[in-house]
């Protein structure tokens, strides 16, 4: 068994100065690496027309999709996800978790999702900010691919009411369902793409990413073992 020291940024997507984008997508990843390190660093932009309707409420986080399994993607029919979300709310004691994505009733859903963040209308422009770091071990092997995420960060507030509903930490585990025939063949295929979406507010309104939100995938070394 051999190792090589291959450490590269493999792809990234950013909103730049645009605050109207709903998705950050990185495709065509070279999966010949020992591990992927995936970094999402972004902010959610709530439209002014939505803000008052959802103010002072918890909102489910950005959506997670992988391996081209999304509407309009190369493996759209494989969009059957298993997702677990864990959140630590400092005003709520121990961690809490749930299966699924919070928006769809069933435990197998059409997309994965990060846990919740709290919205207060009138917060400073960049206050709905968050970071999630994901790892995918052996992105090119022949088994089911999974991304394990850690992060958190949104601490909303406005000049009159700040910092009461932050998230101490998020954890999320996302993969395609390995038993359903629709998703299993793609799930055991290469981890060649990822898409993070801003998602929708609890009232159904579409959200977008704020400026300079970014999704980056790094290759972390190489091994000649790709099937265990």
């Amino acid at each position, binding site marked *: *068994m051999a*190792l*090589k*020291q*291959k*450490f*590269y940024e493999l792809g990234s997507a950013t909103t730049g100065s645009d605050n109207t984008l709903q998705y950050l997508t990185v495709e065509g990843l070279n999966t010949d690496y*020992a*591990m992927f390190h995936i970094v999402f660093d972004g902010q959610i932009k709530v439209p002014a027309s939505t803000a008052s309707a959802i103010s002072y409420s918890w909102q489910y986080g950005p959506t997670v999709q992988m391996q081209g399994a999304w509407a309009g993607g190369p493996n759209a029919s494989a969009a*059957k996800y*298993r*997702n*677990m979300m*864990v959140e630590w709310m400092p005003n709520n*004691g*121990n*961690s*809490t*978790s*749930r*299966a*699924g994505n*919070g928006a*769809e*009733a*069933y*435990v*197998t*859903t059409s997309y994965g999702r990060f846990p919740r963040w709290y919205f207060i209308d009138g917060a400073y422009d960049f206050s709905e900010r968050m970071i999630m770091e994901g*790892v995918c*071990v*052996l992105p090119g*092997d*022949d*088994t*089911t691919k*999974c991304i*394990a995420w*850690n992060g958190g960060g949104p601490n909303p507030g406005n000049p009159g009411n700040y910092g009461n509903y932050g998230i101490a*930490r998020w*954890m999320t*585990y*996302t*993969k395609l*369902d*390995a*038993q*359903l*025939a629709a998703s*299993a*063949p793609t*799930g*055991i*295929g290469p981890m060649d793409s990822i898409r993070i979406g801003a998602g929708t507010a609890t009232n159904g309104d579409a959200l977008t990413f704020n400026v300079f939100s970014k999704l980056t995938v790094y290759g*972390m*070394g*190489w*091994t000649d*073992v790709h099937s*265990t």
Partner: protein
Amino acid sequence: MPDQNWVLIAQQQIPYSNPTSAVQFQNLNSSTATSEAGVTVTLNASNAPVYRMFAKYTIHTSSAISNTQGYSYIYSTSQHDHAQEWNGENQNTYLYSNNQTTGASNASYYTTGTYWGYGAQSNQYSMYGWGAQITDDAGVVVEPYDRRRQGQNVGCWEFYSTEQMYPVHSHWTMICTEGIQDGSNQTSSQKWGGYELGSGGSNQSYSTNEFYWQCSYNVSGTFLFYRSCNGNYQKNE
């Protein structure tokens, strides 16, 4: 390409056909990095103080994992202090998509290591493999119970060392499984998975030359050990 400060120093690849219950990384401070200019540096606690192991592993049992059945330690398996938070199949057998469940926490001392068992999921549990045969992109038929479709625990164990005090290591693990039924029309999931956060350390030695990972059941999977250096010592190949 400039030299870099991350080095993948070692791997343990445990085949599904030959699982084991113990994973060890020894002589950590004898590993080396070699720069573009051909300069080789031995990575010790001083010049490569970050130690980080990522793992993806399948636990070969149908039994629920108790907390002490999975543990890790540096140097010595005794007199550990540890603390953890978790939520898993031992605590909540079912997890509901439209409901949330609350985790639990614990801390103790004089233990064999720091425990991650409650954050792991057995991967050969009863009724697993309820799906149908599929055919992969290469035309190979894959059974629903095949290793390629079993659940995979993922975790990270990390520590920082100066070798001038008793080291502490921290970890997180998590897994999400397919439960026992077709989740596309189920609102709850049995054997849904689990997660944990933990840390701990012993008062036996300052040494960070060895790291041990232990499970009471057989395990297969991939364990990758990285070091991060305080300079760019490694050529990017």
